């Protein structure tokens, strides 16, 4: 573990948040938000991958929803049409998606900046069409997909699926945090900082880019598999260009270069579109656009980082206050 300056309040905050997370779906707390939280969890899993890719390594991907989709579709196809065990299907999906990302990774990461954005966007659109044309159920999608289950214990209620999804999500978060604070993490940040310098220090830049790309794809794929076994339905629409954009938005709002920001980004974005904006009836879209612009204009480092800054400022101010008195 890197000697990072971790103030006590952070540990406290983490503890509180975890407790809230565990309590949320129980009847005596906020059961009505269970489903919303499941989607937040799924989005977080994908967003974390994007943070590693975009925030730490500095490589844009405007097609991440496509990997989310491949995970979902491979799981759906294998369980529904080939009658595989859902867990096995999930594993194969992750492997398949990873392999695919690996294959396209090397050529695509010869591109940089905006050109990379274009290529990933194109890739996403291509996969979207393939889902629509070749996926089970075609454009209308397919339903009645098996639920996940361990022995006789089936994840058949939102309550159970909530813990399944967040279990996965937290594991991914911890893993990612470990990677960030490791030799690998430094290599990634070095690439973001200066590719020339990184290369000169013995870091195989292109290889690391592809590795992290593959990892993010696997995260997305896992989320996709959980997604189909939660909705028990899959259709191409959930993985179109807009979906990719939403994911990027989540990552950016979450402040890119922070793994825990991913939860925040996914949370606020989902909350905004699924909860708060509903109060505005027909104007929700307009306000969504407006908020999106304002956040990006005023907080280029994302809402999370901005709030953290404000919070730190307040604390230092208070401190000084105390000192003076």
């Amino acid at each position, binding site marked *: 573990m890197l000697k990072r300056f971790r103030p006590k309040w952070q540990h406290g905050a983490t503890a509180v948040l975890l407790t809230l997370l565990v309590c949320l779906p129980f009847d005596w707390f906020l059961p009505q938000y269970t489903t919303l939280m499941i989607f937040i969890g799924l989005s977080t899993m994908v967003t974390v991958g994007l943070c590693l890719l975009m925030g730490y390594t500095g490589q844009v991907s405007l097609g991440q929803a496509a990997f989310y989709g491949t995970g979902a579709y491979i799981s759906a196809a294998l369980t529904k049409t080939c009658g595989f065990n859902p867990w096995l299907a999930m594993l194969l999906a992750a492997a398949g998606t990873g392999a695919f990302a690996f294959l396209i990774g090397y050529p695509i990461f010869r591109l940089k900046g905006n050109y990379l954005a274009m*290529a990933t966007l194109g890739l996403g659109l291509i996969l979207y069409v*393939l889902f629509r044309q070749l996926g089970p159920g075609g454009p209308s999608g397919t339903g009645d997909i098996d639920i996940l289950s361990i022995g006789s214990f089936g994840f058949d209620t939102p309550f159970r699926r909530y813990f399944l999804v967040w279990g996965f999500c937290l594991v991914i978060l911890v893993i990612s945090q470990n990677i960030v604070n490791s030799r690998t993490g430094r290599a990634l940040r070095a690439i973001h900082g200066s590719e020339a310098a990184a290369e000169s220090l013995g870091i195989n830049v292109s290889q690391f880019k592809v590795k992290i790309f593959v990892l993010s794809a696997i995260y997305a794929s896992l989320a996709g598999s959980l997604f189909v076994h939660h909705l028990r339905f899959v259709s191409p629409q959930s993985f179109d260009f807009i979906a990719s954009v939403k994911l990027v938005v989540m990552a950016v709002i979450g402040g890119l270069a922070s793994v825990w920001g991913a939860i925040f980004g996914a949370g606020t974005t989902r909350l905004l579109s699924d909860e708060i904006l509903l109060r505005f009836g027909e104007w929700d879209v307009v306000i969504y*656009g407006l908020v999106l612009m304002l956040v990006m204009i005023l907080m280029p480092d994302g809402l999370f980082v901005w709030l953290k800054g404000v919070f730190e400022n307040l604390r230092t101010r208070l401190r000084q206050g105390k000192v003076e008195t």
Partner: protein
Amino acid sequence: MSADQFLQYLISGLTQGSIYAIIGLGFTIIYAVTRIINFAQGEFVMLGGMLSFILASAAGMPLPAAVVLSIVIASAVGALMYLLAIRTARRASVVSLIIITIGAAIFIRGIVGEAWGVDFVRPGFFTGRTSIEFLGAFIHPQAIWVIGTTILVTIFLHLFFSYTMTGKALKACAINPVAAGLVGINAKAMALLSFVLAAALGGIGGAVMAPLTFTAYNAGLMLGLKGFVAASIGGFKSQLAAVIGGFMLGIVESLAVAANWGPFSSAYKDVIALIVLLLILLYRSGRLAEEERTG
């Protein structure tokens, strides 16, 4: 496939192509000057179409006036977008800028939907409806307008960029902002100009194509994506490249339909176009790498 049939496919390709081209042009101009991919470009096109319809039918203006006014309004929206959303966003990364433009797109789309409803509309034809026969193939009079406009606009832009002072200044910013600044070119003004120019282009495109393609508050997204692909094929390099990209895209799509076999069918025409795009990007990346090494 008979000769006149082939010609028909070609015309269809050219018509769609010029639509993509004129949208692609907008992308290229803004990108060249500001290095921003403006995902709201499609919305300018939508505005052009919607406004010319609203002004002509609802406000009862004569069509030409409506078209001109709608182009003016579209440009104004472009200007506002730059001044309020882009210029205020300092130290924003490539990604945040992309998101800002997407936010703007969603915003504009929403407003139009609220203001004029969600039904699709079609402004009046410029010159009648009777399609013209040409060597056994048929062409919509409005399609001629679309193709013609695209060509004229391209020529105009070429002249503008190579012979007017402002045009050269824009070009200078595109090639080397720093140097441009040193010789006293106001980069911000140029960026503003590029947005206005792109928005105007979008408006023109929208106004001219809407009678042919119909339009609706949400038409911008798809058109924008197609135009983006066109511009990408052109490499966001020069206006001409973008136009060629647009025509390539249109013709590839139309020929995919013509072939209509397995992967080469109308269902996959987008895929084919996009694969072409990826191949071009990768080919170019190889060259870029070389340029870096040699430059």
